[in-house]
């Protein structure tokens, strides 16, 4: 898994490439905590290049959502692949997360 970070005027976009699983979820966890510590409360996770996610990965996204929501910020996802969408669907996360088809769509809500 690779993570890149783009800072825009509206928010911080975190792009995930590859697999987000038990072996590497901590990398993302660290990144999100870092942003929260720096008072970046507007985070968009760009998932178009993420081709695998397990419950460990989902846990980090859930954690990010909870913390940012408590800070009255904004935490959104965008560009989920079909397979990943299904996992979100099964886990019941689609109703909790603010999920957008594309980055452009997502940026409108920030």
């Amino acid at each position, binding site marked *: 898994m690779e993570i890149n970070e783009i800072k825009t005027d509206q928010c911080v976009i975190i792009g995930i490439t590859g697999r987000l699983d038990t072996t590497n979820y901590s990398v993302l966890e660290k990144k999100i905590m870092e942003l929260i510590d720096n008072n970046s409360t507007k985070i968009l996770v760009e998932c178009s290049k993420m081709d695998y996610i397990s419950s460990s990965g989902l846990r980090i996204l*859930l954690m990010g959502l909870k913390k940012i929501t408590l800070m009255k910020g904004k935490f959104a996802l965008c560009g989920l692949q*079909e397979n990943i969408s299904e996992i979100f669907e099964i886990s019941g996360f689609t109703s*909790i997360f603010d999920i957008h088809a594309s980055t452009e769509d997502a940026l409108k809500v920030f």
Partner: protein
Amino acid sequence: MRFRFPRITFFRGLAFRYSIFFLIAIVMILFVPLVIGYGSASVLLFIKAQKEATILTEQTVARFKNVLQPTELVPQTLVQAMENPNINAGEVLRIARDFVRHDTVVFGTCLAFEPYLGGKDSYWYAPYAFEKHGRLTTRILGSSDYDYFKMDWYRLPKLLNMPVWTEPYYDAGGGDTLMCTYSTPVYRNVGGKRIFTGVLTMDVSLSSFSRMVKSVNIFKTGYGVLISRQGKIIASPRPVMNNQNILDITRVGKGKLTQLAVRGMMAGKSGFSSMDGLEAKKFPSFLSYAPVGKTGWSFGILFPEEELYDDMYKFLKVMSWMFGISIFILLITTILITRKMTRPIVRLVEATHKIGQGDFNAKLPVRKSKDEVAQLTRAFGVMQDELRNYIHHLEVTTTEKEKIESELKVAHNIQMGMLPRGFSTPDNWDLFATLDPAKAVGGDLYDFFYLDADHLCIAIGDVAGKGVPASLFMMVTRTLLRAKAVAGTPINLVMQSINHELCQDNPSQMFVTFFAGIVDLKTGEMEFCNAGHNYPYVLGSGEQIRQLKVRNGLPFGIYDTADYTSSKFSFNPGEILVLTTDGITDALNITNDFFGEAKLAASLTALASKNTRALTELLIGELKRFSSGAEQADDITILALQYKTAAGAMPPPAQTVQLTLLNQVSELDKLAARIEELSGTWNIPPKTGMEVNLVLEELFTNVVFYAFDDQHEHTIIIDFVLTDVHQLLIRLEDDGKPFNLLETKVDDVIDKPLEERQIGGLGVHFVRKMMDSVEYRRDGDKNIVTLTKNF
């Protein structure tokens, strides 16, 4: 078992025993003077009684004599006077009569004449004057009925020519009373010749003696007895005895002493002796006796022996009571005192019980005095303190020991954790290694790692010594190897560098034998360096076995400038390189035989056809069987590397694939890789592959995180079976705690709002949602989950 102190009863206690000993001593001490006192008192009493009785006897006898003296003197005077022929017999009689009238005991007098000497015409002539009813009467005695010539009072004085006292008699014709007569012979001068003329008698009434005898009192019942010469009892206060003969009384039933005393009395002697008494019954008595003048009588005083000692006995009785009471009081006092003295000891014993039962804070009795008990208590206090300190010290050291042990365990875990576990190699290579430490922390090591994609570094080493120091040295060596071995550096230079580093700071002069090789995975060439380590074995196909007997330098840690060379070895297809430490050849069995090189070579030959894991495990199994019962003396390390076939000759895809994973999260990469591989070979769609991967990751991480309480390495086996063109069967096996994922309730977790959402249970939810069937069973100590997925 805990020792129970016997309960101290009163009779076994010190107080009682001391009191008894004390009392016995006191009784002994008092008894001696008491006995002596009793003895001397009885002797004194006897002497006193004897004196008293003798004096009383003599006094009484003197009284008798006083009374009788005139009775004897008056006739003697008169008789002398009568020798004078000028004196008239009538005159004599008149004087005698006056005497009778005045004397108390003499009641009659008689002047009895020889035939025809009193009057010329009379054969008998005896004028007798006697007192009767207060008047003096005169009568002339002598007739054929009363022939006084034959009577004792006349016959005896005539015969003996001297005054005589007669035996007591009852004079029927004369005085008509019980009496004794004092007869004095009368002589007259007739023509110059002294001729017996007759007798002058004095009759003495015995009733007055009786009064005198009766007035004698000694002790309680002591009494006097007056007997005549022939034993006739003249007077006594016992009416039964009067007129009896003492010989008759004492003849039957009395002892020898009595006979002797009576005979002494009758012989006119005086004395003091013990006897049986004069009554019918025997009363041990004393008799004091003395003769009464010329009368031939004997006076005795009798008194019972017991009366003599009566007062003493009374005194003794009182004394005994007092003695008894004193001893009783003494006993009670002693018991109370000793109890008071031993009470601290009893308390001490109770405190000691408590200490014995583990209560080291038990309170000891407080003693302010400085006696022995206080010293003992203080000594106990010191002992208690020391015991408490000792236990505390023991607790501390035990805790520390436990801490050290747990730290050793951690060290062991760290050491074991340093050894590589992932045996992932290209398909044409097969690698397996194991280390079995002798103690918790060992001095062996093995290692293998990739220098680059084509070069694998393998190493084995053995630090001289065991335990923590060896382990630390081993870790340093291994770290140095990892640091120095880089792609492109010849192995001998790596070794030289490691040795140099190890020699820099090696105060404990440890050393390590080491073998390292760099294998070119493409060509099967190996460049190696053996620094004093056991020669490696090479197992070829067809049970060929050989050793790489090359030495390339000294063990590490000896000379920092030591040089190392390198050698080359080329794997033939199928060959297995086996690296070992001397823990195998030096393994001992219970009869102290070594496993040895020959046995190792034989075992390896037999195992040549196995894969590296099987070979290693079977060899260790054989070693354990050999040394069963004996303690493992050294670490056992084996590293086996097999060059299976030439690179590129891949085996045909199997319909069944097994994947063995260790309980480490990092193994997930292997899982993902294997699923991707299978997706290609078995034509599994990417979505299905992802779902299988996701489900297996959830199950696998669940096992890794929750199934094991220990820190040990476990394996999780996953079997993939392509049962149909479009069905996959997956079997997952672990030896962790029982866990049935089907029993987990998860559905209600899913629909909750954000605030209540928890991630737990989501994995199991995925398993159920994404798989077509899920089964769980517990087989022995294994959890087995079977899944099917259609695609």
